[in-house]
C-alpha cells in the first residue's frame, strides 16, 4: 500500500509540471531555442532571461498587404536603436517570386517615412527571378527610439492591394458634455431636506 502511494506521489510530481506546461493557465511564452541577437530570440521574441528592454512601437495602425511580388531587391538597412542598444548594418539581395502576405504594425506616429515594427511574413518564395525595377529610398528618424534607418530596395513588380487601418476611430457623435454632478448635488439636497422634514413631522406628532 505504501509503495502504491509512493509511486502515485512520484508520478504526480513528475506529471504536474508537464500538465501545467500544456494547460491554459501557463501564460509564459515558449522559451527561445536560440538567441540570434543580444536580447532577442530567433523568433523575434524577447529573451525572457534578458534584462534588455525591447522597444515598443507607439503605433496604432495595422497594415495588411495581399499581393504578388516578383523581382529582386537590394536592401541596405542601417539602424541605431537606443532603447535596445543595437547598432547594425545589413545588406543583401533577395529574389522573390510567389505570393506574400504580410501582416504587421506600422510605426507612423514617431517615425517618418519608414515603417518599423513587427512584421510577419508568410508565403512561398524562391530565389530565381527578376524583372523590372523600382527603386525606393526612405530615410526617417524616430524620436522615441532614436532610429535612423535607410532602406534602398529594387523590386521587380508588385501587384496586389494594401490597406492601412488606423485604430483611432472617429466617433459618430459629439462628446457627451453633460455632467452628473448637478444631479447628484440636487439629489443630496433633496434627501437632506426630506430627512429634516421627517424629523420635524416626528417631533410635532410626538
Amino acid at each position, binding site marked *: 500500500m505504501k509503495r502504491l502511494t509512493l509511486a502515485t506521489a512520484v508520478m504526480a510530481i513528475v506529471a504536474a509540471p508537464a500538465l501545467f506546461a500544456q494547460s491554459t493557465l501557463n501564460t509564459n511564452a515558449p522559451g527561445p531555442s536560440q538567441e540570434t541577437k543580444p536580447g532577442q530570440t530567433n523568433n523575434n521574441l524577447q529573451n525572457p532571461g534578458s534584462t534588455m528592454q525591447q522597444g515598443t512601437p*507607439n503605433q496604432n495602425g495595422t497594415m495588411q498587404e495581399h499581393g504578388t511580388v516578383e523581382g529582386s531587391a537590394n536592401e541596405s538597412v542601417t539602424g541605431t536603436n537606443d532603447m535596445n542598444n543595437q547598432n547594425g548594418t545589413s545588406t543583401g539581395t533577395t529574389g522573390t517570386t510567389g505570393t506574400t502576405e504580410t501582416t504587421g504594425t506600422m510605426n507612423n506616429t*514617431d517615425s517618418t517615412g519608414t515603417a518599423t515594427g513587427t512584421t510577419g511574413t508568410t508565403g512561398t518564395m524562391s530565389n530565381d527571378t527578376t524583372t523590372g525595377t523600382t527603386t525606393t529610398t526612405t530615410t526617417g528618424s524616430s524620436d522615441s527610439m532614436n532610429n535612423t534607418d535607410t532602406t534602398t530596395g529594387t523590386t521587380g513588380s508588385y501587384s496586389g492591394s494594401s490597406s492601412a487601418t488606423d485604430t483611432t476611430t472617429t466617433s459618430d457623435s459629439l*462628446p*457627451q*458634455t453633460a*455632467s452628473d454632478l448637478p444631479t447628484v448635488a440636487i439629489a443630496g439636497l433633496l434627501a437632506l431636506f426630506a*430627512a429634516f422634514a421627517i424629523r420635524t413631522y*416626528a417631533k410635532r406628532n410626538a
Partner: protein
Amino acid sequence: MKRSRLRWLERALLLVGTLCLGIWAWSWLDSTYFQYRENQILDEALNAPPKSTAAAETDSLGSFKPQPVAMPPKPLEDGSLIGRIEIPRVGVSAVVLEGVDNKALRRGVGHIPETARPGVGNVGLAAHRDSFFRGLKDIRKNDIIRLQTLEGTFQYRVEWTEIVKPEDTEVLADNGTSELTLVTCYPFYYVGSAPKRFIVRAQQVDEGEARVE
C-alpha cells in the same frame, strides 16, 4: 413602531444626502485644485526662457544631423495638458486637456482627439455647460477667444453659434482653415443629459486684428 421606522428613514436620507453632497464637494475641490495646479505649471512653462539653438546643438550626438522631415504631431495621452482657453468677455478661463472622457471633462476643457491641434485646422474643444463652459450662454459674434499653448498663443474670433443634434459631427470637420469649435450641452439649464449640443465656431485671427476689437 411607526416612530422607529421614521427614525430609520430619516437616518437613511441623511446618509444619502451627506454622501451625495460629499461627492459633489469632493469633485468641485478636485477640479478647482487641478485647475490651480495646471495653471501654475502652464505659466511656468510659458515663462521659461527658450532653449538656445547652440545649446540644442551641443545636446545632439556629434555630427549626426537628422534630415528635416515633416513630423506628424505626437498623439497626446488622455489627460495631458495642452494649454489654456480664455474668453475674457464672458469670463471663461480654464486649462485644456487632451481627451473628452469623464475625468478630463470634470477637471477642465477637453480637446477632442479626432480634431486638429491648435493652429493647423479645426480644433475641437468640449466642456460641461454647468462648469467651465457655463459662460458660453452669453457668447456673441466677434467675441475673442484666446488659446494659450506651449506652441504659442492663438486668437480666434467668434463667427457663429448653432444648436445641433449630438450626431451632427460635421461641425468638427476640417475645412483646411485654422478654426476653433467649442462644444457643450444645450439647453444650459437642464438637469440630466441634455438632448442637444451648443456649437461655437471661431476663426483664427492674428493678434493685431484681435486688439482692434
